[in-house]
């Protein structure tokens, strides 16, 4: 990856993060538990792909709480992912 490609990738990552941030704020504002569960899960998955276990567990926790509150189908799976890392 040359310098230009690296810069483009960094810009794309920042744009994706900004979009996720805006979507999360909107979901919090709307108290949309389904969206919060899915968006925090997406954030956790992204951190997992980067190998950031600590950040992943933070976002998994956020996703889990909203899934627990709403009875979301992914609740058990989120719990299992946290348990896998001894976080719950």
């Amino acid at each position, binding site marked *: 990856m040359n310098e230009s490609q690296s810069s483009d990738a960094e810009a794309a990552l920042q744009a994706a993060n900004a979009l996720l941030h805006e979507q999360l704020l909107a979901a919090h504002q709307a108290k949309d538990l389904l969206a919060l569960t899915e968006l925090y899960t997406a954030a956790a998955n992204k951190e997992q792909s980067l190998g950031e276990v*600590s*950040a*992943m*567990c*933070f976002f*998994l*926790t*956020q996703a*889990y*709480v909203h899934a*627990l*509150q*709403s*009875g979301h189908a992914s*609740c058990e799976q989120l719990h299992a992912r*946290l348990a896998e890392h001894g*976080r*719950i």
Partner: protein
Amino acid sequence: MAEYPLTDLRSVLTDVKDAKGLANEHYTSQVIFDEEKRSILFDSWAGVGFGKDVPNPGDVKPIWFLGMPLLLVRDHDGEIAVFQNTCRHRGMILIQEASNISKVMRCPYHSWCYGLDGELKATPHVGGPGHNKHEAIRNEDLGLYKVPSAIWHDVIFVNISANAPAFEVHAEKLIQRWSEFQQPLCHDDKHGSITLDVKTNWKLAVENYCESYHLPWIHPGLTSYSRLQDHYHIEQPGDFSGQGTLVYQQLKDEAGLSFPDFDNLGDQWDSGAEYIAMYPNVLFGVHRDHAYAIILEPKSLDHTLEHISLYYTESGASDARYEGLRKKNASLWNEIFKEDIFVVEGMQAGRHGALFDGGKFSPAMDGPTHTFHHWVADKLSTHRSQNQANQGSELPSS
């Protein structure tokens, strides 16, 4: 240790013909109001809400009762429980408004989550970011505080101090007396909830409700067919008091239709009805075709909300044929209860008369009211004796 004004309870705790009523301070003193809050309303079984307030599984409703934040909860099995509405973490109010909960109740502050059974289910980040457990946080020890509660005639009773006999013991005599009405009482969701805002001490609403003496003067519309001599006193010292009528007439519409009767009632109820104050703060009425309950919510020393709830048989509460009758019946009771407002507000104002000595009971007509005063005085007397004993035990030995 609080110092209570030495109101004279002995003059109440005697036979009705010799007794005086409770002294003015029981209606005008904040100190006595606080004493009664603890020794009567918290130590006994007080009504705080209705089952109809949380009609569906998962419904939760936050309420305040004498400064206590409480949470009415109907779980997914339909059972009602009452919790203190305070998160065990930092004391935040857990539920801010009535809602329906699918799984857990989440504290809006740090998101500690509780099941509808009060059990602590989740403590996000409690061990640090992304760490949801800590050895010092034992979920099994940190559930919501559960307040002893019971449901009878759709009224939710609580014993906040958790020191009263079981509700079934406390209410045994009234449960037995009205055992025929132990059947579905269906709330009229459209017309059957009325709240009156009254500038009076809560006890005066009980006192007025207990007796029939005032009916010819305050409710002349009733006495056109239900004369004073058609009423009888109900006195169960230590438990409840009230009045009954022998000439209840069913409401009928223009076509002669009346509400359907409750099932399998005895002959007594063909033309009989009873109105009983279940101490401390719930007023009940039963008739062959409808019933009601009134919860007196003391807002302050001289301010009370009266929450009235009307009930019928299942078809009486829901069948469209009875819609007009339900509206009319609610309107009639609303008018009758409103007729009492100037009386209970007038007695509250009159209690500022420094020369009033608690009042002279009519032995013939005021027995049910004296029975209530006697119960209050007995509770307070016991409370004061216990306080004195505790105070004595705290004194250093010489």
